[in-house]
């Protein structure tokens, strides 16, 4: 971390970049916040630890409007989001200086809490995590505290960067589509009950949307009057369904599966399932596709072949 900080400072000081987009030390190890640093003094608060989970690529939309280059720290999976934003002209490559930072799987304080620990006073980002709580000390294995998305890691390679710093590790140890398959295997009634229970928790806080690098619309369709769809009321279960289906549809073929939506949901809704279902379908029907892997790739929903499957495939045994 010190080396990364020093390098960033060097680039800031020699004028290569006008600011650094990274993480600022929080109240504790586990709550670093995304931050812009413009001075050496500010850089004192720069931190990069295993709790730095936030995908910073979306902040580059605003940073691209600023004078000078922004040094941005991207983890391997974040670099896919960056590329996708680049492909959609939402950010300016010339305005970014990318340090591809090493990632060995990111930790989540929620996961630590789910292990039953309460009143956490401090925690380390080591393996195992040493946790000090109001009600006693404990240890949690690194893998157990890792974000769900890191168990289906896209790999340790950055798809775009100017320079690399630190080692990465492919932390995948689970089948990316296992949950999707489990739901596909359910009866319609079970599926409906599952999603009804999950989506009824939704409070329409829009955290999933606002954190999503693919949801980069200046004005979301759910905030505009274009479709009479600007609803904030969760009076009826339909609204959540509409919101999440359309959101998933709008990012279909564009979602890099960065997992930020599920990470930030205050109600713990496994929102990535929607996106991953689309990814699985796209892979099955239109060929393997990873959004953000190639800036020049044609998106699966903005291209076609004359031999594509008919929509009826869904009712004829589903897409497998």
């Amino acid at each position, binding site marked *: 971390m010190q080396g990364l900080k020093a390098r960033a400072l060097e680039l800031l000081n020699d004028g290569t970049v006008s600011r650094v987009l990274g993480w600022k030390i929080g109240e504790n190890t586990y709550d670093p916040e995304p931050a812009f640093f413009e001075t050496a003094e500010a850089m004192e608060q720069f931190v990069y630890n295993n709790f730095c989970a936030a995908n910073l690529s979306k902040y580059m939309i605003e940073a691209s409007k600023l004078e000078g280059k922004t040094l941005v720290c991207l983890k391997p999976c974040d670099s896919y989001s960056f590329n996708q934003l680049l492909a959609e002209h939402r950010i300016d490559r010339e305005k970014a200086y990318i340090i591809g930072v090493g990632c060995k799987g990111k930790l989540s304080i929620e996961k630590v809490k789910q292990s039953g620990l309460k009143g956490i006073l401090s925690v380390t980002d080591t393996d195992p995590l040493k946790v000090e709580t109001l009600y006693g000390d404990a240890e949690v294995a690194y893998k157990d505290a890792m974000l769900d998305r890191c168990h289906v890691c896209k790999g340790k390679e950055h798809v775009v960067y100017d320079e690399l710093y630190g080692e990465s590790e492919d932390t995948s140890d689970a089948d990316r589509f296992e949950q999707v398959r489990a739901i596909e295997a359910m009866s*319609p009634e079970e*599926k409906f009950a599952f999603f009804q229970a999950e989506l009824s928790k939704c409070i329409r806080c829009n955290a999933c949307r606002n954190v999503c690098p693919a949801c980069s619309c200046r004005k979301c369709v759910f905030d505009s009057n274009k479709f009479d769809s600007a609803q904030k009321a969760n*009076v009826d279960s339909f609204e959540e369904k*509409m919101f999440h*289906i359309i959101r998933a549809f709008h990012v279909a073929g564009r979602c890099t599966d960065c997992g930020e939506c599920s990470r930030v949901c205050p109600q713990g809704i496994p929102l990535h399932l*929607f996106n991953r279902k689309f990814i699985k379908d796209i892979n099955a029907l239109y060929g393997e596709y990873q959004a953000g892997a190639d800036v020049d790739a044609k998106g699966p*929903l903005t291209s076609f072949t004359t031999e594509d499957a008919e*929509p*009826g495939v*869904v009712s004829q045994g589903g897409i497998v």
Partner: protein
Amino acid sequence: MSVNEEFRPKIVAFCCNWCSYAGADLAGSSRLAYPADVKIIRVPCSCRVNPMFILRAFEKGADGVILCGCHPGDCHYSTGNYYTRRRMTMLFSMLDFIGVENGRTRVEWVSAAEGVKFSTTMNDFVAKIRSLGKNVRLGDLRCKD
């Protein structure tokens, strides 16, 4: 609704202007009947149909939504229905994924010459929706009273 009363579904059919709407016209001029439950909305091309329109129909009380366009390869705009095909496959798959009965939505390609197909398609679709019954999984309860 009393049990004796026959279930009359609300069905929205989006038809592209060049093929399917004309196919529906041909069904009409050939006097090929299909249930009055089907109401047609004319769109220039099937690719004009936004998934939001389909969800909107369900929200407001539709029991089934069918989308008809030119046969792949015959699109008046040459490629519109190819996009439709991918989009709707994705949408239908998602509806299936969240537990909506998958017969409630359908895409059929009906040419201007296929009045018979239009009529049989609609008869078949209405029968399917009647067998599925009222849409309860994808509707806004506020619209149900």
